[in-house]
């Protein structure tokens, strides 16, 4: 036992050395901290490496990315912070873990309302928050977000958690359009229509429509591509084919879009490479890859859209300012609690 006790200690030490191997700071590297699953954009990162010779190392941190970078401080290995959802992106700026950069390539490629005038953040791709409707049971060919609260959908509506960033942003956009009071009434209407608990993911809306649990629901645009393309396996093709996809609009506005975007970390050790990566991501080639790899809408005007997404119809983007949407997020999240949306 004596010996095995010592052996145990030695083992513990060895394990620590093994797991504690620090990240070597190579010359041609860029470190990506992302709240977005990096596998989704791996084809883009690979293409970047091929073109520039710069290796991209990434870590997927779903929650707490800003907290981690903030705590790591000046020694943080983070170069690029990438998030989905405008609110999450602005959070990194608010927590002072980003730095402003000036880049003509970025300014030229990204429309002004999709980037920070100070250069702290940049949108890289867009996704619409759309309506999935049962091919078999729903005949409507157009719809507004407001009409989702119509009692005719009672017991027929599915959506993921009201506290999910995609929904909080949608509700926040409704607040920007119509104010908090009307939004509360709207949310209560939608809540009353729910066919099941507001939970799960967007794809489950399609699955539940096929499964007969609901007739209509809300989901992001790129999931339609992921399902219908067969990339998620044969079952998901059936889910994708069970739905008609409508491009809903706000009354007096357009379709709510959210962004995926990025910022340069405040203490980026490889800042130059980081800027190169961002510039690459908005190049024509990369924007086309975004569409192809992940079925997103490009931010760069004129870049091609994947045929599956293009077939959904012409996107008429909502006019409200994304920063205003991000600001209304707190109220939106509180309203979700107030009406008991997730209960």
């Amino acid at each position: 036992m004596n010996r095995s006790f010592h052996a145990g200690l030695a083992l513990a030490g060895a394990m620590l050395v093994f797991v504690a191997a620090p990240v070597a700071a190579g010359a041609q590297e860029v470190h990506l901290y992302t709240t977005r699953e990096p596998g989704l954009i791996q084809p883009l990162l690979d293409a970047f490496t091929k073109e520039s010779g710069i290796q991209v190392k990434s870590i997927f941190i779903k929650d707490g990315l800003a907290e981690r970078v903030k705590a790591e401080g000046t020694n943080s290995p983070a170069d690029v912070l990438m998030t989905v959802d405008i609110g999450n992106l602005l959070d990194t700026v608010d927590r002072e873990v980003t730095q402003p950069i000036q880049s003509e390539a970025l300014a030229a490629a990204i429309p002004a309302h999709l980037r920070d005038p100070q250069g702290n953040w940049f949108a890289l791709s867009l996704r619409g928050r759309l309506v999935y409707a049962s091919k078999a049971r729903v005949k409507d060919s157009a719809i507004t977000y407001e009409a989702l609260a119509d009692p005719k959908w009672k017991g027929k509506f599915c959506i993921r958690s009201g506290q999910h960033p995609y929904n909080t942003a949608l509700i926040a956009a409704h607040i920007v359009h119509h104010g908090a009071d009307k939004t509360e009434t709207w949310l209560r209407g939608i809540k009353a229509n729910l066919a099941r608990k507001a939970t799960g993911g967007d794809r489950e809306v399609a699955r539940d429509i096929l499964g007969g649990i609901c007739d209509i629901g809300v989901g992001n645009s790129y999931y339609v591509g992921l399902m219908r393309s067969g990339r998620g396996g044969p079952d998901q093709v059936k889910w994708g084919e069970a739905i008609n996809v409508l491009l809903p609009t706000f009354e007096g506005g357009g379709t709510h879009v959210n962004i995926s975007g990025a910022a340069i970390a405040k203490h980026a050790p490889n800042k130059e490479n980081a800027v190169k990566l961002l510039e690459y991501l908005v190049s024509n080639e990369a924007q086309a890859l975004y569409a192809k790899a992940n079925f997103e809408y490009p931010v760069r005007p004129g870049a091609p859209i994947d045929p599956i997404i293009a077939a959904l119809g012409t996107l008429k983007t909502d006019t409200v300012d994304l920063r205003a949407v991000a600001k209304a997020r707190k109220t939106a999240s509180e309203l979700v609690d107030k009406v008991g949306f997730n209960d």
Partner: protein
Amino acid sequence: MTARISVRAPAAVDSRSWTVAAVLIAAIVLSPVVALVAIAAQGSGDLWPHLFRYVLPNAIRDTGLLLLGVGAIVSVVGVGTAWLVATCRFPGRDLFDWALLLPLAVPTYIVAFAYLDVLHPLGPIQSGLRALLGIDDPRGLSLPDIRSIWGAALLLGFVLYPYVYLAARALFLMQTASALEVARTLGATRTATFFRVALPLARPAIVIGTTLALLEALNDIGASEFLGVRTFTVSIYSTWLNRSSLPGAAQIALVMLAAVIALVLAERWARRKQRFSGGGRRAHPPSPVELGGLAAAGAFLACLLPILIGFLVPATHLAVEAWSRVSLFGLSPQLLIEARNSVGFAAAATVIALFIGVVLAYAARLDRSGMATAATRVASLGYAIPGTVLAVGLLMPLATFDNAIDAASRQLFGVGTGLIVSGSGAALVLAYVIRFLAISAGGVEAGFAKIPTSLDAAARSLGESAFGTVRRVHLPLLSPALGAAAILVFVDCMKELPATLLLRPFGFETLATHIYAEASRGTYEDGAVAALLIVLVGLGPVVLLARMSRPLLVLTGRTNGSAHA
């Protein structure tokens, strides 16, 4: 280090240095809590009025119902099956004896994913039922949705009951044998014996097991969020992430921690007058009762059902999904590296947690002032903190430590050290140790309780130091308890997700983070291979645990059956 100081020191100094070590350990465990207090003190504006009005009533109700449901299931299933296996003989008993532990290997979030698939209208069960009944349209047959509080309680209960089973079984097997025989001799029926003797005697063990299970359920985020249950933990998340209020989230987390501590203390207070101790001699196992006919069939079903729900169904589903994914898309070479990382992190944390567990338990044994005992209790707090919250709390002290070392090194040597703890796996290992120290410390403590102090006195009077006594007397006697604690900690580390997600070093993925990555792409079926690997890696230790825990009693109660090997 403590050991070296104390090797040839007199006894009083000896015990003091062990106490100091215990207090230091407690301080390290407390550091994330202190960091959370600091974060919470930044203020959260109008958070609490909002919480009181709109969030807490539901969160308290949901959390309460979930804990009630899980508590009822784990204690009834855990105690019931343990009683059957320990005191009866029926077909399959030898198999059930260890198979009842299998659900331990399956992470709760994976169970939730799996059941959503299995029970969905498009899944095998409802499709099969419809085919059987000749219904075409999925809407023709409407079954209750698993995405509910009851669904969550059911699933969590049937995955977490092994904590109770393990504790109760060991107790039924050994300690109560003589008491049971006395009761029977005095004319009590078997039922009366169970309710009036066995159950009260097993209470400490059942409480330990149930507490572990309930804290797991309370801190669960994956399954609860997936099944649409609004627990406190889910509220912490939405406050932090959607309202960008980390201070507010820290406040809720601290309130939750306080509530847990209060409940644990209340339970200890409630049985303060009870003393549990067996004789100093080895209790002989109760002679099993032969069940026949209906009773045997009932016992068989009662043991089969929990294994079916908690293990066979999700594991089979995973295997089927994994197979179809592998044949469609091939096997990712990353998986092997990820499996190695998972095992490496978990093993390192297990060894350290055990070592610390021994230090804590021995300090408590030596120290009469109660200081070390208090330190041990504090050091077990990590289990009551949700993984992500613990991780956020650790970020600040670790990074402060790292940056201080780095600055000092730059000053002294002109070279920075970078993030030596938080930038490496050490942070994650530390998080695991803090999170699961309750299991190792509790297990070792229970093991120590079975070693008469007269052995210590004998060793010391023969000139052995305190450290020597541990090494040459206690550790050999403790090895079964250590083994059991090691396996539980290891399996829990393998399954741990939220802290891993936030603290893993740059460029390292584990099986759990792999599954999560796939799940966040919305294709959790793609994570099936990794999920299956977690289950398989966890399976070995669980079977081992079952095999070793039959003859060698472990991890339970305060009774004083003598240690034997």
